[in-house]
């Protein structure tokens, strides 16, 4: 993200009114800042990443991640502001931070990053209380290392956890389809990497819960098999029984043992499950009799599945037990009035199911409150479809043509804030991973 200097200058006048030049022991803030609101109930706390020498890439990634968490009012300081290079001296007490200044700017928290002896030193200041809240040293891979960005994202998530008690979502990735290839990107849109071949036609990627595998539809000649990709570079595997007919919309169970998917045959489309640990034991869950049943998505306890069915005419959202019993309508609709509803995904906390529903023949995102059985429309501009939950259960990635072509967008369901993730080509069918841990992070298939 780039920050407009002129905008900063415009707000400088405001900031300059206070005696900025007088305070910081280190440097004068020579340009203005956006004046945020200090920690008042209902308002997001102000957060500033203090500029400093070196670590530009790390600081930029962390700054953006914290912004994308949508939990803070980010205060942007010009790079010349901040602390001197000797701010961190191992073994010495932290130099005093001018808390009064940052309080004036509207910051509740301030993040310092500096290169230290044993790695990168991270210090979180509680500006309101005027003290260091957290301090840690993390060994950090070189910027050229494939693990660098994910390491930075993981650091961002930790800072979010220090402040809010729950980690951020920066260390997750998205899989998506561009030009019939599956690609993965970091949660901030960076580091785009192809996962399937250029000559293949791939659709419907789905992450395993541990982030180590990806299932997708390998489409060819009007038929499709479900392929499991080992993201650490192991061999591909085809899910049993999916070598004939058109198999689509794979989705892992929360424990990663079972893959649910849909199969189209001349009798319609029905949902099946297969054991993807033993690679066996295919079971049929629906008997559509010329209707379509597809897009299975597990509740986080693994005991129920939401799915799409055309049993009443247009596709709508239903649910069933994970063995196929107890099938019922899940998202209410008005017969003959409500448009087609598709692409459900159960939220990580189990409370909601997101899906898209056609309004005037344009798909829009809807949220179903599972306990209350109420639906709420989330979007209205352009076509908005194929939503997928971030691991925090409050962000959704989806495809929208609001900018002219089909691009990936992210919405914070709680604030309504929306942003675009730039990808070349027309983006389709995104799938958001859980937070990625450990070894799977640096592997590059």
């Amino acid at each position, binding site marked *: 993200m780039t920050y407009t200097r002129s905008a900063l200058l415009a707000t400088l006048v405001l900031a300059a009114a206070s005696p900025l030049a007088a305070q910081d022991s280190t440097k004068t803030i020579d340009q203005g800042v956006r004046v945020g609101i200090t920690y008042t109930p209902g308002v997001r706390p102000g957060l500033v990443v203090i500029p400093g020498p070196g670590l530009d890439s790390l600081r930029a990634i962390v700054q953006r991640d914290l912004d994308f968490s949508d939990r803070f009012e980010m205060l942007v300081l010009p790079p010349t502001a901040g602390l001197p290079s000797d701010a961190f001296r191992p073994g010495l007490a932290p130099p005093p931070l001018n808390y009064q200044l940052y309080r004036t700017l509207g910051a509740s928290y301030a993040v310092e990053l500096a290169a230290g002896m044993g790695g990168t030193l991270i210090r979180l200041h509680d500006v309101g209380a005027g003290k260091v809240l957290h301090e840690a040293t993390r060994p950090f891979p070189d910027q050229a290392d494939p693990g660098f960005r994910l390491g930075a994202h993981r650091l961002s998530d930790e800072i979010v956890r220090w402040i809010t008690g729950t980690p951020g979502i920066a260390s997750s990735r998205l899989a998506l389809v561009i030009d019939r290839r599956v690609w993965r990107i970091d949660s901030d849109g960076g580091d785009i990497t192809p996962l399937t071949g250029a000559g293949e036609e791939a659709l419907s990627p789905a992450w395993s819960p541990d982030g180590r595998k990806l299932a997708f539809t390998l489409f060819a000649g009007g038929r499709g098999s479900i392929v499991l990709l080992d993201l650490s570079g192991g061999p591909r595997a085809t899910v049993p029984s999916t070598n004939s007919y*058109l198999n*689509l*919309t794979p989705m892992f169970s929360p424990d990663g043992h079972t893959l649910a998917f849909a199969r189209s045959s*001349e009798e319609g489309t029905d949902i099946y499950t297969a054991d993807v640990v033993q690679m066996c034991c295919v079971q049929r869950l629906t008997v559509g009799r010329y209707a*379509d049943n*597809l*897009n299975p998505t597990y509740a986080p306890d693994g005991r129920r599945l939401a799915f799409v069915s055309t049993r009443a005419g247009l596709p709508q959202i239903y649910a069933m037990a994970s063995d196929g019993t107890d099938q019922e309508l899940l998202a209410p609709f008005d017969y003959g009035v409500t448009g*087609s509803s598709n692409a459900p995904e159960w939220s990580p906390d189990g409370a909601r199911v997101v899906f898209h529903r056609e309004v005037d023949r344009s798909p829009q995102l809807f949220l179903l409150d599972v306990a209350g059985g109420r639906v709420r429309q989330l979007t209205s501009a352009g076509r908005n479809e194929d939503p997928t939950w971030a691991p925090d259960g409050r962000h959704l990635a989806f495809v929208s043509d609001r900018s002219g072509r089909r691009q990936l967008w992210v919405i914070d369901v709680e604030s309504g804030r929306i942003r675009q993730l730039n990808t070349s080509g027309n983006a*389709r069918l995104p799938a958001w991973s859980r937070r990625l841990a450990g070894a799977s992070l640096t592997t590059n298939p």
Partner: protein
Amino acid sequence: MRNTPATLVGLSALLLVAACGGKTAPEQPTPQSTPTTSDDAAMRRARQDSIDAAARARADAEARAKADAEARARSDASGMRTSLMDAITSKVHFDYDKADIRSDDEAALDRKAAILAANSGLRLKIAGNADERGSDEYNLALGNRRGAAAKRYLTSKGVDAGRLEVVSYGEEKPANPGHDEAAYADNRRDDFEITAGGDGLVQP
């Protein structure tokens, strides 16, 4: 296509005209060989020459007519084949988000069923397609339902199910690259592809 018998009648008439022309044309030169001298030998020779010339002309004309007729027959066979191929591969179309065979497509499907009945070696792949609206994944299922609907219609007319294969391309293979209602209408379709037995098709 449906008026093929009429075409055949018209063609026969053409052939008949060509045959008559072959007979009449050589008779025209004969009146020119009226004798004008007393030289019998010369007269006889002249008459014989003209008779010969007339015979040659008649033979030429007959050969020409025969060749023309053969050419017409050949082009008729290929025309018949083209019309059979057109009938068997003609698309059927669907309403938005629907997979029901429309009444205006029933005649085309009946014709396919008749051709399939007359050509027992003929096998078809039916590919269902959707317009680009609607969910990408749902469109695959919808395309499948459209292909299956045409197959069910044909089997209900007596075609053996084993001769018809159903696949779906969803919205992945639009016939019309446009993004308007006309393009969408073109793209909500079943394609019919001959996978075996397409040579030597005979009329039902």
